[in-house]
């Protein structure tokens, strides 16, 4: 009985202590952050696409080395998260791997905000399977059938007798939306095709790579930057007449690889000041060199 009475007292003390600590640690930081944002305007928030987060980070590091007075904070969360953030005014640049959806355009209009799109690089989406999988060529139509669940066994497309394990990105991912519209719906954004209910929704590209590495039945899609030599990349063709292509630099820049997309920076209105100089840096040869170094595809050769 004595024990039972002691516990709440202890809990209350812990709570008080915890709250005090919290106040001590966070409040000054918040005040500081707010005042510095007001007076110097030098912390730029960049948020959005998980595909672009490493790229954004690399650009930011190089830019901060060149301009020590500017601080850039890059976070992921998905293209949708970034777009929501730029509409809510909680970030300065949204990184997005897709265009605004109709709903997002409407809510931008409702808030009287003009979103500017700047393409900053290309991304090819690689379709990946286990290294032991004998299948190495697929058309976009076959991919659509696999991901919608029409084709359910690898032996229907020349592979082993093995049920296909379909891996998709989560719905907050720009890659998910792009793949849905350009592969499953064949470019028709109003289509009704859907990912199979049995498709696993993976929280990150890295987790898709990990799962494909270990499962012979798996097929998934990731940005070319995530491809490693422990997984196999499928050659993809627009239709059965070919050509079957890997997502290489040349094939994407020439517009021949069927599943490629532009990566975008979204800003509110015409960009100015540090935001503009950062975008200029990204589009400069030095910025595009970083694109190449991270296995994405630069805008031009």
């Amino acid at each position, binding site marked *: 009985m004595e024990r039972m009475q002691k516990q709440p007292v202890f809990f209350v003390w812990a709570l008080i202590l915890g709250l005090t600590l919290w106040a001590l640690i966070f409040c000054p930081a918040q005040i500081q952050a707010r005042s510095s944002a007001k007076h110097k305007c030098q912390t730029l928030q960049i948020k959005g696409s998980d595909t672009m987060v490493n790229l954004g980070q690399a650009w930011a590091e190089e830019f901060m080395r060149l301009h020590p007075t500017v601080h850039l904070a890059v976070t992921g969360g*998905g293209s949708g998260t970034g777009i929501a953030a730029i509409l809510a005014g909680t970030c300065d640049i949204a990184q997005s791997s897709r265009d605004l*959806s109709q709903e997002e355009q409407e809510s931008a209009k409702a808030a009287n905000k003009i979103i500017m799109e700047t393409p900053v690089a290309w991304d090819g989406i690689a379709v990946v399977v286990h290294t032991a999988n004998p299948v190495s060529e697929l058309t976009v139509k076959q991919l659509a059938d696999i991901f919608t669940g029409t084709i359910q066994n690898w032996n229907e497309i020349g592979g082993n007798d093995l049920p296909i394990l379909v891996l998709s990105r989560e719905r907050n991912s720009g890659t998910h939306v792009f793949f849905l519209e350009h592969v499953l719906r064949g470019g028709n954004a109003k289509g009704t095709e859907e990912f199979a209910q049995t498709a696993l*929704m993976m929280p990150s590209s890295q987790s898709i790579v990990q799962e494909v590495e270990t499962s012979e039945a798996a097929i998934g899609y990731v940005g070319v930057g995530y491809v490693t030599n422990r997984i196999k990349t499928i050659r993809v063709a627009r239709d059965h007449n070919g050509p079957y292509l890997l997502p290489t630099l040349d094939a994407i820049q020439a517009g021949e690889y069927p599943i490629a997309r532009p990566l975008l920076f979204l800003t509110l209105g015409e960009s100015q000041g540090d935001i503009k100089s950062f975008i200029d840096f990204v589009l400069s040869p030095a910025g595009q060199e970083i694109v190449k170094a991270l296995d994405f595809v630069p805008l031009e050769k």
Partner: protein
Amino acid sequence: MKSSRAYLNRIFEFVIEKAIFLAGILSIVFVFLIFLFLIKEGFSLFRTYSIFSFLFGTKWYPISSPPQFGIVPLLLGSVAVTLGAILIAVPLGIGSAIYIAEIAPRWLREILKATVEFLAAIPSIVLGFIGLVTLAPLVKKLFHLPTGLTALSGSIMLAFMAMPTIVSMMEDAFTAVPKSYREGALALGATRWEMIRRVLLPASASGMLAAIMLGIGRVIGETMAVLMITGNAARIPTGLTQPVRTMTATIAAEMGEAVQGGNHYFALFAIGIVLFIITFLINVTASFLVRSQRK
């Protein structure tokens, strides 16, 4: 002099009393406001989407046009993971609590109690990460599955998270059984096991049930670990070795994408209401059970 002092004291007393009263009812106010907000946002969905297709629809395609917000697969996903976790955690928890309360020597008891409570302090994302790297491959290999990201992996992981709640609550229930019961049983010639089975367990039955209920509450609300480890395929599960998508994981995974004020956003809040109602019922049942044991 004396009277003004008494007067001051009375004011002081009054202020403190009211301040404490305010602090006391704050939690009620918070719960009420949260529930109100949930209702307001969640019910906005039903202005344009039928509540019937929400509760009984079997397809969750929130970003299609037209979208489908059927939560049956999500609800059953949560149920599957929770059921699995409870099946694992309850027998382990009962054994562990009996050992701690009745059998372990005093020094070991203290160590065990502290360790079990420490288990509760491990952040769920850490457990989820460890589970993703170690448990999922193991489940895949043991059951010859195409993937280890299944309800079963989630259940095992969540069983670890429910254990601290279940063990410490049950241990409390056992300790609350009067000593005279035990002594009486032993004096009548019962063995220790007979005493535990025939006297201790029946006497603390409602406390044990309460512990299980709170364990369920802990499991059904857990998010990060299940998001990482259950595969998140929104289909109706027919077994524990399949990928499932839980209600919590759906909210966590999709809230970034949902446009504020859109139907998808409202649907996530509607899921929130369902979750809230479930945990509320569980907690009410648990506290009812605890009270019935005290009597």
